[in-house]
């Protein structure tokens, strides 16, 4: 209920409490809300009226003066009826004749009538006992007792109980019972056992005797009556008026059947209507497909792979899910691609991902999918599956200088002394980091395409030849002097 409703009595009455002020009624009636102290201000600065200095501008003659404070009244904890009456009279007084005259100057007779009707609708004692004006900082900036629902402002009420979480689909027996229950609501013209018999039309004297012993005249009369009765019943059945009430109740109508098919719940929730339009989810155990579409969840994973994403990868790589999740991965490129067909462009996403364990293993994976997330996921899985060990000199740099060319991209990698760091282009930094290299220099003299750079760098790292292998090929004996004689200290 908003301020336009008659509950605004308190506002009016407060403003009208000092009838000696001539402008008070007009001011209160014209702008009850704007001038109201009930409006919560959201500004740090005070209102314009309070900011004005009194001395600078002479107050207007008819400006509303400050209201005198009402005397403090307290009802107490258990007020008597008399006390309540006194309080009501002082706080919510009736309009005085002067006030009424003042109001009539402002409002049309129809408006006055509605104001008076509104005043009469509320007992002032209710205002004393029930109505409270909130003063807390969180009050609404409008007057409303929230007794009616305004569809524009208020949310739609949830009248129905929440859906039954235990509801499941009915089995055959339950469904049959439900169908019979529904069908029983309709009185179908079942007449067996309810029709009158021939004997019922016979006179009292002949009731006990078998029919052949009846006198011929009486028998003919009874038969005529009985036939008339049957015809009448048959006519009733044709009209659908089975129980003789004059209404057509010949079973369910088409509309009933349609509503049964479309609206009747097939769950064991007694056909309750829910607040939600959402259909309830399928049961966990649907017979026939139970367990067939469930991802195998390995208890060893510790709940890290609920979706079963890494189960194949576990078999391929022999790593645990924890180890897989701890790998260093990086998306090198995620780009939108399109396939031009006669039906038009089919858009998709291509992703390339680097994966390494930071300890000498590195792999790269490329994948395509319509959804970017799927492409990323597929590329990630491929990158992990493609991981291979690389040769590292002293676990920190590469053996010798490497060069690899992919398309127009040439990548040169140079081994460097300890403490040199990864002084490589940014798009190659993560590859070195993922592979667990610490000292490396690189040059990309030609095309710097990110994808080809990554491919070339990974290929260069993966196709290194170890000095031992070279020496064995040539039939030489090889000793790393630095390691053998100086323990890697020089």
């Amino acid at each position: 209920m908003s301020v336009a409703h008659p509950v605004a009595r308190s506002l009016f009455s407060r403003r009208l409490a000092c009838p000696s002020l001539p402008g008070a009624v007009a001011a209160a009636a014209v702008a009850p809300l704007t001038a109201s102290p009930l409006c919560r201000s959201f500004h740090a600065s005070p209102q314009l009226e309070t900011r004005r200095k009194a001395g600078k501008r002479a107050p207007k003659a008819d400006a509303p003066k400050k209201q005198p404070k009402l005397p403090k009244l307290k009802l107490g904890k258990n007020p008597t009826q008399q006390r309540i009456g006194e309080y009501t009279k002082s706080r919510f007084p009736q309009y005085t004749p002067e006030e009424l005259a003042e109001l009539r100057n402002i409002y049309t007779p129809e408006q006055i009538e509605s104001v008076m009707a509104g005043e009469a609708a509320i007992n002032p004692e209710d205002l004393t006992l029930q109505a409270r004006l909130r003063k807390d900082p969180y009050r609404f900036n409008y007057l409303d007792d929230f007794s009616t629902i305004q569809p524009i402002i208020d949310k739609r009420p949830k009248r129905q109980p929440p859906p039954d979480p235990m509801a499941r689909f009915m089995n055959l027996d339950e469904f049959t019972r439900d169908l019979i229950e529904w069908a029983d609501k309709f009185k179908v013209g079942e007449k067996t056992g309810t029709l009158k018999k021939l004997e019922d039309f016979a006179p009292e004297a002949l009731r006990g005797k078998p029919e052949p012993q009846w006198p011929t005249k009486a028998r003919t009369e009874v038969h005529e009556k009985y036939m008339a009765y049957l015809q009448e019943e048959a006519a009733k059945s044709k009209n659908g008026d089975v129980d003789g009430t004059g209404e057509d109740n010949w079973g369910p109508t088409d509309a009933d059947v349609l509503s049964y098919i479309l609206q009747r719940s097939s769950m064991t929730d007694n056909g309750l209507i829910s607040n939600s339009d959402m259909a309830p989810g399928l049961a966990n155990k649907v017979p026939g497909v139970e367990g067939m579409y469930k991802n195998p969840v390995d208890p060893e994973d510790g709940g890290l792979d609920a979706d079963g994403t890494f189960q194949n990868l576990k078999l391929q790589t022999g790593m645990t899910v924890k180890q897989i999740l701890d790998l260093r991965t990086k998306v090198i490129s995620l780009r939108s691609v399109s396939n031009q067909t006669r039906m038009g462009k089919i858009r998709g996403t291509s992703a390339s991902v680097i994966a390494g364990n930071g300890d000498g293993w590195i792999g790269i994976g490329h994948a395509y999918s319509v959804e970017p997330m799927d492409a990323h996921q597929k590329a990630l899985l491929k990158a992990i599956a493609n991981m291979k060990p690389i040769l590292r000199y002293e676990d920190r740099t590469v053996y010798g200088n490497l060069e690899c060319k992919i398309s127009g991209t040439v990548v040169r990698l140079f081994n460097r002394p300890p403490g040199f760091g990864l002084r490589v282009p940014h798009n190659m930094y993560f590859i070195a980091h993922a592979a667990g290299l610490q000292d490396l220099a690189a040059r990309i003299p030609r095309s710097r395409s990110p994808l080809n750079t990554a491919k070339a760098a990974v290929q260069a790292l993966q196709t290194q030849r170890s000095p031992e292998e070279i020496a064995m090929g040539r039939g030489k004996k090889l000793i790393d002097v630095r390691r053998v004689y100086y323990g890697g200290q020089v």
Partner: protein
Amino acid sequence: MGIQQITNMCAHLQNASRARLGITSLPNTRYNLNLALALHRAGFINSITRAGPHPPSPSEFLTLEPEPVTTANASTRRLWVTLKYWNNEPVLRRIQAVSKSSRRVQADLEQMGRIARGFEAGMHKGLNLGECMFLSTDRGVLELREALDRKVGGLVLCRAS
């Protein structure tokens, strides 16, 4: 003329090696033979045999007593070289001539020292991992480290790796 033979030999050996050939033949010249022997010392090739236009059978490759070269058969003599492979990969992956007949490139001792340690020297880049450089010195055709041991510089023939 000799340098031209060397550049041809380098190109041929690289091609044969990449084509995964087991045996190949080179023109029988003194220069070619000296470089082939140096390559053999460095372990890039298996064996060198001087024979006629047809290669000796594999069983007699190492035991064959070559015919003495005479003026009658000199023009038909060839050097038969067996190439080396390890782990399905050629041992001689790359062999590139440096000097050519129109430009002969020398290396002195100071440069050779730098090259052997992997640094640039003059027009030469440093040797990479597993790389060898062959020079023609007055002690014969030598690998870079052999020449350094003997403290002789000379004409740079090729780089092999």
